[in-house]
């Protein structure tokens, strides 16, 4: 069964061309011209991936993403016009898993989508990983802290699994980009940084003074049990 993509973009022609390109890649595409209608459509269609343009009339892409995140852990890719402004980080903070920059290559976009969808648990994952009062269950896809379930996006969950599966071992940002996002050497390290920050807020007792997910300067991140 082919994956469903919800495309949130206000420019009709871009939407039409993206639909053509994505359908060529074998996806089913739902369209939405605004953030408000996108949230409605998402409830009806249950898309596997959502593409959100940041510049939307009315409710903008950030807010759409935040609203979506309240009810769903669906992978979100944001479409931004620039790479090195605040947009990228702000979009990631709003809950996006990844981003592409306009004008993008449709092949690259579909590679990103595939990478997001591929992130299922590998066979040799242990049933449960624990550190501190946090329990990660790769088999169930759940995270509990002090017995209460913590809601994570799929990317956050993958990142946490990578760290928890290698306790005490330093993982560089390149390694994490490669394993979690499927990026090469020149992937954007901000993806890792923002997701680490979001994870800390969810699983650390005090996100400002992390005790488990630690920064190792000049090297990367590691998980302390």
């Amino acid at each position, binding site marked *: 069964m082919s994956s469903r993509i919800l495309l949130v973009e206000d420019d009709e022609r871009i939407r039409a061309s993206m639909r053509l390109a994505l359908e060529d890649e074998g996806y089913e595409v739902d369209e939405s011209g605004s953030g408000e209608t996108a949230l409605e459509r998402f409830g009806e269609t249950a898309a596997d991936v959502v593409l959100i343009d940041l510049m939307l009339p009315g409710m903008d892409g950030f807010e759409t993403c935040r609203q979506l995140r309240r009810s769903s852990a669906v992978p979100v890719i944001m479409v931004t016009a620039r790479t090195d402004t605040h947009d990228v980080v702000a979009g990631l903070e709003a809950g996006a898993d990844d981003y592409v920059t306009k004008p993008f290559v449709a092949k690259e976009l579909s590679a990103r989508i595939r990478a997001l969808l591929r992130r299922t648990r590998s066979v040799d994952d242990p049933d449960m990983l624990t550190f501190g009062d946090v329990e990660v269950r790769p088999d169930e896809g759940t995270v509990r802290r002090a017995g209460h379930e913590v809601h994570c996006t799929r990317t956050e969950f993958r990142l946490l699994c990578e760290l928890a599966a290698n306790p005490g071992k330093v993982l560089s940002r390149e390694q994490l980009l490669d394993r979690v996002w499927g990026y090469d*050497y020149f992937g954007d390290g901000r993806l890792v940084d923002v997701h680490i920050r979001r994870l800390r807020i969810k699983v650390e007792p005090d996100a400002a003074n992390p005790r488990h997910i630690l920064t190792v300067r000049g090297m990367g991140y590691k998980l302390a049990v």
Partner: protein
Amino acid sequence: MFASRHRLSDTVRLTEQAGAPWRPRRRRARLGLRARVTVTFGLGALALSATMAGLTYFTARQFVLNERQSAILRQAYVNASLARTTLRSASPDITQLLDSLDTVPGSRSVLELKGQWYATSISVGEHAIPLSLRQLVLTGTPATQHFALANTPQLAVGVPIPSVDAAYFEVFSLDELSRTLRILALALAGAALVTTVAGAVIGRWASGRVLRPLAQVSKTAETIAAGSRDVRLVADDDRELSALASSFNRMTDALQERIAHEERFTSDVSHELRSPLTTLATSLEVLESHRDEMTERTGHALDLLAAELRRFQHMVDDLMEISRVDTGSAELLLDEVDVGELARQAATAGGAAGVPVEVDPKVAGARLQVDKRRIERVVANLVANAAQHAGGVTRIGVEPSDGGVRLVVADRGPGVAPAERERVFERFYRGQAAGQRGATNGTGLGLSLVAEHVRLHGGRVWVEGDDSGGTVDGGRGAENRFVVELPVLAAATASPDDSDDPDSAAGCARGAMPPAVPATVRDEVTDGNEDGHDGAPADGDDPSGHQSARRPAKR
């Protein structure tokens, strides 16, 4: 004065940078305004005080001399009449007569009686009195004469006494008087000198006060030229000065608005182009995936369309990048990386995967703090440039240098003529080779972006080659090198910090910043974080001292 001249030369430098026409040589040859005011005040005070002193001196001298002369004459006549009275007697005692004469200190009497000369002083006798005076008086005419005796000024008075066939002379020494006048002259000259210096000091002080707002203007202008365009002059209470301040501020506002407008325009244009470009690129991809359904002719047309669209896309990307640098919104995302690894990865990403990467053993393992994306673009653009103009890159080298590490992208093409070596980094510069090009993917911005990226890192880029233009040996001669010099991290800060405390990591990241990124950059980062919109990670939050650094454009 030095301070103001220094400031002036700074202004000259700034103006030259801004490309405005300026003739510094003529300016430097002249004195500064402050020096000129000081000199003028000094000269004015000198002229005035010298005139006053001169007038005072000559008036005083005339007055004193006249007084003295009339006193002398009075005394001489009194003595002459006394002598006459005495000489009329039957047997006058000349010696007693001369002794009894009423004289002031410094005056000596000489008496001529029937060809005989008598004197009260040994040194002053007949011959001490000038001949002309003697002759005049002996012929019956009373006279006075100034003369010098043993280098001291004297006044001689001669009074004929015809009734007894005698002549009375009295010689007065004016030594004391002239000494007094000399002291007066000295005192007046001293006063004139003091007045001159005082004039100069007042001139300097006054001009300093007048020029202080100008210094303020110049300082503000420098600050603005250095990139802080929001700085304004504070309007003074003084009416004239506040007029200057407000017109300066108005000018700065107008300039800033215009600059911002132009920058925004480039940025807006590139932005607006992105939407249609996205549709074009996406649709083109759809067409390309159905290329096998096309005829050869339509397929060829599609290829042309694709090639030009990609070039167009690159151009828009490059314009965006340039406009970000121009508006000062370019961010450096610094990562600490191994220089050899960086060169290899950049070569691969830049489309030079098969090109040998030679890392000098001396710099193997050296760590740099760079924005990887930008350095990748630098290498990619240099590789593309070599491919386009020089038959492709032959090797990529990493070499040590005094200023850090050099990335060398070498080719064996015709090279860049020495005259063009600076200009190739200009935007849309078309060199001599431009006419020879066939199909190209060049945007005309590649090398200028190289220069901007390298500058953001605090590095330098230049071209090296055979100075004959590299055309020896049929254009396949010497090696031409594009050299990128980047600052290297100090050894101490290159070691990883295993501290669990992100704050201490932040401290280290601070020390590890490359020297070219000024401290002010960090402040901007902090500001950016504070507005809550920029989610750029705090220093400690990030494993490689990864920083989001916004640098103001220096243009």
